[in-house]
């Protein structure tokens, strides 16, 4: 079962390209986008973004594996699932990063990086919760009105929505401390 999973993971060519290009773009464009931010904080923000993406993906993969283990669902849509996860995670984290940039620019000099992040994360939490409910309502509508088969696939994507939402709502404080340790 694990070997089947790893073999499927190896065929996720599009996801690997997508992830590589996104990380490349972020590394290249972080300087112009975050030019109003101190260099050390710029590095921390980029680290926060990339660690958050990686964490979302790793947790989503683990959740997917668990889902397959319990429901005997096939691995064949793993590539699509991972692309969906990455897009969602990019979207949530970009909003967070731009908000953090604004907080840092506005913040008093005495305010630490973690404190600046804290404000953005608190506001992010409620929004993410609403997005989860919104997705759930559409999922139920499709499940009952359209087709059960596609409903189970979209249900699988709901795992990814949950994971990405919780990572972007709860993990930034932890990732922020981690990025502060990396870039002292």
């Amino acid at each position, binding site marked *: 079962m694990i070997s089947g999973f790893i073999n499927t993971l190896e065929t996720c*060519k*599009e996801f690997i*390209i*997508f992830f590589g*290009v*996104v990380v490349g*773009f*972020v590394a290249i464009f972080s300087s112009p*986008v975050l030019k109003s931010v101190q260099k050390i904080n710029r590095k921390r923000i980029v680290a926060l973004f990339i660690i958050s993406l990686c964490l979302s993906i790793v947790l989503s993969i683990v959740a997917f594996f668990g889902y397959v283990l319990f429901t005997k669902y096939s691995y064949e849509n793993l*590539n*699509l699932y991972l*692309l*969906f996860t990455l*897009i*969602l995670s*990019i*979207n*949530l984290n*970009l*909003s967070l990063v*731009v908000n953090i940039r*604004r907080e840092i620019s506005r913040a008093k000099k005495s305010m630490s990086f973690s404190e600046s992040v804290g404000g953005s994360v608190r*506001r992010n939490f*409620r*929004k993410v919760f*609403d*997005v989860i*409910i*919104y*997705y759930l*309502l*559409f999922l*139920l*509508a*499709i499940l*009952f*009105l*359209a*087709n059960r*088969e*596609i409903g189970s*696939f*979209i249900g699988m*994507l709901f795992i990814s*929505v949950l994971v990405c939402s919780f990572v972007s709502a709860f993990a930034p404080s932890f990732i922020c401390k981690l990025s502060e340790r990396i870039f002292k």
Partner: protein
Amino acid sequence: MLKNENFRLVLISLIFSASVLVILPRIEIYVSNKLLKVDSYVGGYSPKIFGKVIDLSDFKKGMDVGGMERVVFTIGDAGTENVETNSQLVKEITEKRMKSGGYKEYQVYISKTDGKYQLVVEVPKYVDINYLAVLLNGTGNLTFKTLKNPAEWGPEEAARLVASPDSWLPTDISRSDVSDLAISKGSTGQDQLQIIFKPEGKAKFNKVAKENVNKPVAFFINDQDFPVLIPVIDESLAADALVDPTLTGYFPQGFLQSFLIQYKNGPLPVKLFSPEAFDVAPKFGSNFIEKFGLALLVGFSATLILSLIRFKKEGILLSMSVFLSICLFLALVKVFSVSVNFALVAGTLTALLLFVEKGYEILYKIKLEESKDKPFGYVIEKVFGEQGDIFKYVIILLFFTMLLVLRSAKGELVSFIYSIVIGCLCLPYLYFVFKTLLETSGGKKK
């Protein structure tokens, strides 16, 4: 002009109307009574844009939604030791040909029935099966043959000789002597095939040409019994040892293009026989699109209530903006002929999540700023000004990376990637609509 509120509202109405007309299937309207006589229709148009007709009669249905055609070929050489290796090779070559032929949604596999190996190709119903069978069936080989009895040649004999495979003898020129093939247009616009030989091939061809001046050299493709052309060698061609011959004739539309794909991705190690096509019913049922449309409407109604509870009037405006953006999204899906399958459903939901997440972000920011007792008009300008950056970065990052990923994508994934690209195109529209609606609802007056 975009600063004028009325102009923006008219523009939004026009885009919405156009989107709905694109999405709708053809609906006949027939009224005949004493007062009114109408015999017309709405939706399902076929507009001509830049000389190209865009068929909007229906969404392009993928295999899961519109059913599929299963084409089965029997693989030659059954029973020999190499049949398994050959079958695998046939599968690989078929996949390459499908990719070169521009097919995006397909499945190719080998099945074994009654000891016979079969190549199975599954494609959506909108694919031209006859062309596909020709494309996959050809071995991709090319040969030149000369007359067994050159003395019997005369222009009046041409038709008889073309229909007589026994009249020809193979030369030693084979596909291994050819370095490339190219299609060009002749002086009268007809397709012509240029054969670019390797040096040793050129020498072989020149020898054949010299031996057959004013005689035909038949050109055979795909190991067929009958020649495609029997051009007559003229003296100038035989005299020029460096020339690459060009075959000119009246080929059917797409004939040379399909041979080029066969040649460049071949040759098939064995022949394929008796293609048979079978209809396979759609996995998601016959009226999935209607059901999905209904589910979207119900989903919207449910989320409208959610937004109303959370944000009151602004929540309704957000739902309206998301609805208008999704209408534009679906219209673009139809215009760009994106195949409707489960990946597109996932893509539509992803686009919806992008829209909603951005919308909620704006509403929470507005709530926060309003709590500081700032005027609504000022709050809208400020929040949308700040959010513009996020919209810009998301669009740039997703749009360009998705276009890069599209190059390597195949199968149903293509629909997903297209849907994200289209979603990125619709995001600025969401921003524009939501801002206009908020301003119109009293933002500026306050």
